[in-house]
């Protein structure tokens, strides 16, 4: 077991009080490829932000890698995100003033586990894996949305995180590239025991994953 949530609830108060997540509990095993599906507005993104430790405004308990992180302070959570979680966002991808390569390198430079030369080498590997080696030195802002999303995936992989989370990580990709990304994620979970939690609208994508959790109106069905 790598991640566990117990009785997660969250409310929004603006414009009116509204319970967006209602008593959600589940566990995710190490190396599992999990997909989250559900209609738009059912609370998938909100849940994923809580799982990723970025949103701390909830009730319930979140355990990551054996540590109860609920109640941790912002610095502790930042360290956990840096080391253990890779995240691919729904629309916000890259730092536009940097090259693709630099974008991929930044989380590793923050972590400081490897030398700069090693990090650059690793970053090139990840870009190659996603078919972007030739774009490495381009400024991030010069890439198409699909390419940017793939760079963001490469960046999520750079620190060999225990968990990779994606909010529609293939939402901007054509079927060929969706297949490429799916295969990479599958391989990471099977061969490197990395855990994948991905929100998706793509039924084929969900069906091919190890497990699918369906949500409706803030509950797990």
């Amino acid at each position: 077991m790598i991640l566990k949530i117990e009785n997660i609830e969250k409310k929004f108060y603006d414009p009116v009080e509204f319970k967006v997540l209602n008593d959600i509990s589940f566990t995710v095993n190490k190396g599992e490829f999990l997909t989250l599906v559900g209609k738009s507005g059912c609370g998938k993104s909100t849940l994923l932000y809580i799982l990723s430790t970025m949103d701390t405004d909830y009730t319930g308990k979140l355990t990551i890698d054996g540590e109860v992180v609920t109640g941790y302070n912002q610095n502790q959570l930042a360290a956990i995100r840096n080391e253990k979680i890779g995240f691919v966002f729904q629309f916000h991808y890259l730092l536009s003033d940097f090259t693709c390569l630099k974008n991929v390198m930044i989380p590793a430079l923050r972590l400081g586990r490897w030398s700069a030369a090693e990090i650059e080498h690793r970053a090139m590997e990840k870009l190659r894996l996603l078919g972007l080696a030739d774009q490495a030195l381009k400024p991030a802002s010069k890439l198409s949305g699909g390419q940017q999303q793939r760079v963001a995936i490469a960046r999520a992989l750079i620190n060999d995180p225990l968990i990779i989370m994606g909010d529609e990580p293939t939402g901007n990709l054509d079927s060929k590239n969706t297949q490429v990304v799916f295969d990479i994620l599958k391989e990471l979970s099977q061969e490197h025991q990395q855990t994948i939690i991905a929100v998706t609208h793509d039924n084929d994508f969900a069906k091919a994953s190890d497990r699918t959790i369906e949500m409706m109106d803030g509950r797990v069905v």
Partner: protein
Amino acid sequence: MRINRNIAFTYFWASKRMTVVAILGVLLGMSIFMFMNSMAAGFDRASGESFFKSTPHIRIYKDDVVSAPLSSDTTTRTLIINPKVVPNKVTIENPLQYVQLVKQHPAVTVAFPQVNCPVFYNNGQSQITGTTIGFPPDEANRMYNIASYMVQGNINALAQNQNGIVIGSGIADKMNIITGDHINITSSRGVNMTLAVVGIFKTNNSKEDKSKSYVNIATAQQMLKENGVFVTDINVNVKDPETAPQIAAELSMLTGYKAEDWKAANEAYMAASRMRKIVITFISFTLLIVSCFGIYNILNMTVSQKINDIAILKAMGFNGRDVVRIFVYQALAIGAIGVILGVVFALILVQALQHVYIGGDIGYFPIRFEPWVFLRGILIGLFITFLAGYIPAKKAAKVDPVSIFRK
């Protein structure tokens, strides 16, 4: 961490035009701050120098005593009191012993007895009124640096000639006298003397030049019909003029006579000098602070432009302190460049003004490179820069990434 600096410099280059404007702002503020403060320091030094050419740091003299009523009992009897200055002699008893005593104080550099004597310089039918000052010429020269404003002759010649006199240039002009001539003077006590002019001085105060002369102390005592222990003042210089008030108090305790420091003696001068200092400090600080608004402005803009970046960085594990550093580094980079260029520009201004001739008693513009002023400017400049960066950076550190991603 290096990556924070790295990101900071990328942002630094990303908005070139605003960066340049911010640097120019700091440059101007810094250079004018340092220039104005150098100027203030220069004015103070110049006026201090000319001031101490005729004023000792401390003057010890016998103060007038006002008569006290014979009885202090004012309740039972009716007393008619008529306080008056006691008609005592203005002399200091045992002056040489006191001079020795004063000289033993560790802070004292020069101390000598002085006798002032009102005189008339006789010029045929007309007379010029003035004062002749009797003192030991060697020590007086050490205190007032008389040699620096001698225009003819030599102050040391006075020590060798007991009948010598050094006169102001105004007197010399009026009486058409040059060094080597003789001058006839009459004292307020009616003593008449003919003395040999061994030198002529010219200060920056034409009134003094038209009335003042220097003689040996014995000559002044003779003119007052007094003996060799008659001394009206003991003049004292100390190592640091700023400490004169405390030392004056100590010397007063030591000798029992009144010891007046130069600040107390020249309240009007001190008030004007304080006023000047306050005005210059206020204006230069205001300029410095205003000049750092450029940094505040650019940092605020960068923070709001890069709010998406900040959210991504925080999601990837950068904490609040990292974010603060990124923006403070950016501010400090701008500030440091501005400060360095500001120092260079201030040096150029100081150099240029040093060669401007004002004339009068000022001569060349009294400004020079003041290491302390520059050091203080650099520290204050960097501190304000830091603040100008820190305030927006703190705002950036508080960004909640989730609220950005939801948009």
